[in-house]
């Protein structure tokens, strides 16, 4: 593999992925409703997790995905069975979008035996081999070489799968990200790097932490094409995701999608968010909320009535309530679990 890719590349100019798609995919009513339902599930789930954290039912760190829902939901609409997902510690939304059981996710947050990691991983460390979800990683940027390795395995087996490797604007400054970019392009690995730019690495804004704030250009030194996407519009995300996945499956190597998004809540539950104004958050919520955008379109196009959407809201609330109830009442892990799963 290494030897074959040693041929000299001539191109110098930033590469653009060919056949760039329509910026915004047109959604059928079914797709709009599916996206609405998925994003709402994440929103309500995270709100509940925030509440439960406040009640002391969830411990440690808890990073909520509220505001960023369109990214993972849109991306997942382009994934097919076998494709892998891997992300950092802000991972609850990725698991729900991947179709994993909200009860299992919530019970992991509360550290119970019914949690996805039997209560041994917590908020930042959840996995599901069955759902091809590879975590859930607590070290900023560490998932990037790992996701690249998943793509290496895909390429090794020539199975046509794609690794969707998510990281934030903060992780984008880690050295191992660029080590990964280099190998991914050198060996033409099928990996979509999804940079979720929510504008703040913990409390440090991108302008204060990044010499180049256009993250879609971060692959230029490696000849990896990149695109900036409105990550608050699920249709734009899906269109970009489809194109990126196709690019990878065709053997073109990696691609970068910078998702411009925003988190409404603090970095974690313990963040007072003093580094930005309330007005900034309010403006984003009012003008760009990913869920409200879909809701408005559904209503304006008469694709759904207020009653239809209320019914969905009620259904989602019930799912989240059940998850919270399960996670509050499930037993803690058996003490014997302390010693299991260290070695296979």
């Amino acid at each position, binding site marked *: 593999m290494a030897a074959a890719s040693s041929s000299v590349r001539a191109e110098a100019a930033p590469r653009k992925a060919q056949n760039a798609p329509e910026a915004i995919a047109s959604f059928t009513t079914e797709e709009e409703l599916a996206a609405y339902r998925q994003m709402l599930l994440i929103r309500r789930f995270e709100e509940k997790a925030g509440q439960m954290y406040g009640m002391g039912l969830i411990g440690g760190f808890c990073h909520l995905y509220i505001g960023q829902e369109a990214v993972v939901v849109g991306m997942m609409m382009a994934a097919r069975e076998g494709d892998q997902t*891997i992300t950092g510690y802000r991972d609850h939304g990725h698991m729900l979008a991947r179709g994993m059981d909200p009860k299992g996710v919530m019970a992991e947050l509360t550290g119970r035996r019914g949690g996805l990691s039997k209560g041994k991983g917590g908020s930042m460390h959840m996995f599901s081999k069955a759902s091809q979800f590879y975590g859930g990683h607590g070290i900023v940027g560490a998932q*990037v070489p790992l996701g*690249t*390795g998943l793509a290496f395995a895909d390429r090794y087996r020539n199975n046509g799968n794609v690794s969707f490797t998510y990281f934030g604007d903060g992780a984008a400054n880690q050295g191992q990200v660029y*080590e990964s970019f*280099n190998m991914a392009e050198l060996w033409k690995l099928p990996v979509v790097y999804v940079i979720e730019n929510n504008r703040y690495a913990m409390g440090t804004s991108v302008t204060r932490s990044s010499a180049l704030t256009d993250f879609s250009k971060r692959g230029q030194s490696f000849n990896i094409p990149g695109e900036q996407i409105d990550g608050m519009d699920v249709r734009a995300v899906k269109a970009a995701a489809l194109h990126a996945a196709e690019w990878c499956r065709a053997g073109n190597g990696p691609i970068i999608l910078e998702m411009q998004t925003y988190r409404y809540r603090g970095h974690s539950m313990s963040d007072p968010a003093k580094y930005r104004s309330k007005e900034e958050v309010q403006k984003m919520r009012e003008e760009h909320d990913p869920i409200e955008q879909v809701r408005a379109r559904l209503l304006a196009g008469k694709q759904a009535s207020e009653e239809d959407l209320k019914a969905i809201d009620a259904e989602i609330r019930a799912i989240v309530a059940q998850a919270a109830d399960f996670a509050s009442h499930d037993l803690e892990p058996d003490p014997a679990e302390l010693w299991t*799963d260290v*070695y296979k």
Partner: protein
Amino acid sequence: MATNVLMPALSPTMEHGKLTKWLKKEGDKVKSGDILAEIETDKATMEVEAVDEGTLAKILVPDGADNVAVNTPIAVIAGTGEDATMEPGPSAPPADGRKNASTEGGSPQSDAKTAADSPLAPEAASGEPAQPSAPEIPAKTAMATMTVREALRDAMAEEMRRDDSVFVIGEEVAEYQGAYKITQGLLQEFGERRVVDTPITEHGFAGLGIGAAMGGLRPIVEFMTFNFAMQAMDQIVNSAAKTLYMSGGQMGCPIVFRGPNGAAARVAAQHSQDYAAWYSHIPGLKVVAPYTAADAKGLLKSAIRDPNPVIFLENEILYGHSFEVPQIDDFLVPIGKARIAREGRDVTIVSFSIGMVYALKAAAELEQAGIDAEVIDLRTIRPMDSALIVESVKKTGRCVTVEEGWPQSGVGAEICARLMEQAFDYLDAPVIRIAGKDVPMPYAANLEKLALPNVEEVVAAAKAVCYR
């Protein structure tokens, strides 16, 4: 005056080489920088350049001569105006690889390429006899002599033939055939899909290997030395070791990280560290450090099949050592089992990897002094075979540990603690640790020798615990 051209060393650990071909003949005029000859070892080939001007007066070692000791005079260069037939100059220092190589001869680089002044006295064929306690080798098994280097390569090749998901990745593993020639021939047999050269990017390719293992492959990640793996420590510890636990048993990471560990010779502080204790601290990792070629082969095969991440610590100096390796199809040595390398009654000496060289030599000297030492080769550092150590100490009542790593929180310190916990009532003397000195590895030959353990220290410690 005439100068001798000496057989150069390609590396600090080289002792012998082959003089492949002379490119100049007797009587030829040579000037500084002219290539006189080509030499090779099992690791590499190199050209010998003249450093003096004059006439190639006499060739002392002919084309094709094998096993030429480092520092042997191979030719004489007569200075301008001198008689080209004159006798060679003063003879070179003993060509046993123990003295500094003369830089006046044809040494290709006069800076670091001196012969090893290693206190370890590596022996090209120590040919240790069949082992007293090695249940994995049935009696009357046919044996073949091979180097640790060859044993490691054979282990990888056998496992790669057996399982398509096994592949090798690292710096210089493919086209260069391995920086220490451990992967020699693998590219030719298995192709570039399965023998993958990486950029110099330890953190990145360690993480990539772990991701591939999570994705179902079985990577063998070669570090050119474990000194460079510190760049990858986060991925090894946080991603490889902990993920099985954090996922409640779902994930797993079947991966081997291998490469030379510890001091070679004269490579100073940043290239000489022993990481056995570091990795052995981590639950989720297995740590293996073989001494013999048989163990290197059998343990590496077991490591590749193991469903857990395994740190496989080799030793550059041992690569060229020869041992008897059983000719058994699919020879496996279980991880987690120590071996009694020498049975004895009076004192237990526990060591691993290159430390076994000191331990066995000390045992031989102690025998002369009437002390019958039992020598245990740990082979695996984690999980540690405490049972065998305790059993031995119950018999001898005394213990000395030997390692090249630092003493604080070292492997010896761990053995001391376990003996306190599990064999306190059997100890007739406090355990003594022989370890590398508590300093960064110095470069100067005499200081390096002082920094490493030596046979005398082991002998003295064994006598001390025997109150002799």
